[in-house]
């Protein structure tokens, strides 16, 4: 994950809605996000509070746990995203496993945060996502490649495709492979003999395709049936 240092926005602070039921973790995340004064953090311990907060002011970024005392956040996140597509979403996860990634994509998230991530990493991730930076981590790349039948056996895919794998061009698949192997954008660009600037363009195209194929309801169902656990 490349961070674009020094590109900090100096205008009015952006609003972050932090939805997390565990108070210490919420406090830790809030502290990490409000550092440097770039973000104004609004905290919500449950969906009801979050809904009220969104009603009063649409945030620029939502950082949300998926499982909350009064339900699963996916519905709300998808709703917000539909109403205000400019809102960016980061999902909070403990393990960063595939189930979470499916859910995050279903929620329209651009990425995820580990609950124990370093404060600076949390902050950087938030900035990056606000700048429209890389939404695809190696885990997401692996996930897409696996679903596209590029890795391992499709038969062992753990659940029915709640996220439909879009049709990807050979070039896009090559880029995904590069990301999955942990290569940087520059390395991918030189390997594929292309301009480093075009790599993010491709990645955004991939992600758009992926989100178009996302079916929030299917993930919601899978979570309800216990196929996806948090």
């Amino acid at each position, binding site marked *: 994950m490349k961070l674009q240092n020094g590109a900090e926005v100096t205008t009015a602070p952006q609003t972050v809605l932090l939805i997390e039921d565990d108070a210490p973790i919420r406090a830790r995340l809030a502290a990490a996000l409000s550092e440097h004064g770039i973000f104004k953090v609004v905290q919500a311990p449950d969906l009801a509070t979050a809904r009220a907060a969104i009603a009063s002011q649409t945030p620029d970024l939502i950082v949300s746990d998926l499982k909350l005392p009064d339900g699963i956040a996916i519905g709300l996140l998808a709703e917000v995203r539909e109403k205000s597509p400019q809102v960016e979403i980061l999902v909070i996860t403990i393990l*960063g496993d595939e189930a979470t990634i499916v859910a995050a994509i279903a929620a329209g998230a651009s990425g995820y945060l*580990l609950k124990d991530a370093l404060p600076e990493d949390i902050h950087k991730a938030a900035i990056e996502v606000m700048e429209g930076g890389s939404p695809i981590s*190696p885990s997401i790349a692996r996930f897409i490649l696996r679903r596209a039948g590029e*890795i*391992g056996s499709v038969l062992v895919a753990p659940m029915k495709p709640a996220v439909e794998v879009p049709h990807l061009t050979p070039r896009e698949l090559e880029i995904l492979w590069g990301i999955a192997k942990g290569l940087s954008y520059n390395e991918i660009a030189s390997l594929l003999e292309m301009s480093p600037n075009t790599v993010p363009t491709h990645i955004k195209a991939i992600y758009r395709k992926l989100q178009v194929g996302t079916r929030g309801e299917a993930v919601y169902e899978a979570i309800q049936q216990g196929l996806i656990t948090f």
Partner: protein
Amino acid sequence: MVGVLAFLVAGLLVISLAMNLMHQRHAHLASEVGSMMCADRNGPEAGIVATVRLPLAYSPSQRRGSDGIRCQFEAVFSPEEALGAALLIPAVTGSMSVEANGHPVLVAEQYIMRNLRFTNVPAFVPLGPDVLRPGTNRFTITLIAPPGRPIAISPVLSGPRAALNLRYQARWFTSSVLPTLVVGGATALAMVFGLIWAVRRHQAEFGWLSLFLLLGALVGSVLIPDFGLGGGPYSIWGMLALWEAAAGLMFMRAVAGLPTKRVHLWFAAPPAVLWFLFLANPSVFMPNLVIQGGVAMVLSYSLLGQWFLWRVARRGNLEALLILIGMAFWTLFLIHDGLSAMAVGGNMIFLSRSAMSGLLVMICALMTLRFLRAMAQLDDTAKTLRGQVAYAEKMLTESYEELRARREAEAISAERVRLMRDLHDGVGGDLASMLALAGEVPPRGAEIAKHARSALVDMRLIIGSLEDYGGNLTLALAAWRERAGPQLRAAGITLRWKVDRLPHMPWLGSSQVLDILRIVQEAVTNAIKHAQAGCLEVTARECDEGIEISLADDGVGISDSRTGNGLRNMASRASRLGGRLLVKRTEQGTAVRLTIPTTPPQAKPDASMP
């Protein structure tokens, strides 16, 4: 092919039968000349002068300069009849000329087919008003024998031309056309059955049948010239009929299911003796003995064979019954011909060669029957086989399902054991430590946090290892890097990543990936904990022994006393992978090098089971 022949022959038989019936219907219109006044052509001293009853068989005496006879008879025609009458001589052997009231009306040179003695052809003499007169008419028939051969004539018919013409055509068909067809059919069938026998030696009946038909075809065949061997009155080829009868007997025995043994060579003795007598002295006095002996032998062989057939046909052997019917049919004609030949009775019209068509039909019917039976058997076999295959398939599927279920259960069980062990090794230990630390007064927060972090890291390793990397270690390492990056960054260590294109290793399952990641993670943890390093370089590449993953830091270097729990665990994991682990102090710091073969190690007892 056999079926087609059968239909052909059957069709011809039906036609001939129909024609015979037709001429029988008109028979009453004709009158038979039963006797003639005959004299030897060369004068009374050369031979007979008598009123002879027809049929007549006569061997002109060469010694006395005789070569034929002249016979006279009278026939009465009404004026109407005289307008369109005819003579029909159903069977005649020799050259013949006919005069009506002194006018020559027919000169016929008979082509004696291949010197066959027991065959003859009809002659038809149309008579018009130019030669006939109402009332009594005098006819003279002159028969001339080829040198040294007999002449024969059957009773002569006189009557309306139309009726006799029909009868003539029927006779012509049975005496000329049918035998030729029989020869053709028998030759073809002999070849077919010979081929069948060549590939199915255990079915002796095909071999004998082939021989029987072949010999029969040779006897009646115009295919082989005489080579002058039959210089005498009897053809050497005609004598093959004896062997034909012997082959026929063996054929009937085989159909009856009787085995062929050495003792049956005796069946070859009579034809051999007769053959010898014929060759030794084919002239004067022998012929009658040989002919009579031959006819007797053929008849007795045929009857013996039929007796064999009858014994099994009685017990319901349909094949034997069919052959028996054909043989009996043929034998009747053989007896008829035999009697004529031995001048005991009959009309000198030889029919056995034509009658053989009936036998051929039976043989064809038999073979068709066999074919149909074989087809039915084949169908049955196919059905049975299909059933068996379906059953076997079902059993196989069931046992496969069973096996799969067991495999699945085993795999799940093995996975459960592995997860338990993994949790025990990592998270379990950390949690226990955390409990102990929390119980102290005051609780040691920093250490609890350390263990919590370690537990979380290990948990993620386990989760990460459960992903399907499809044998691509580069992906697994990249996934690990995603997690280790922040840890190293937090410790102020720069990560240098040099992972080359690694070979595909499908044997790397979750368990192996976890072992590798734990070794790597342990090395990182050590570097963070003890090394005070500024930089960690992770290299993975293909080497001679397989692949090599090395982690080198620029820290203080590992102490020489390598007794740490962590190191021991790393080594045991490495050996479980069939690889080697080398941890050493370098000039720069510490280097951990793990070598893993590209192929899976032999199963070893798991030393690190809890």
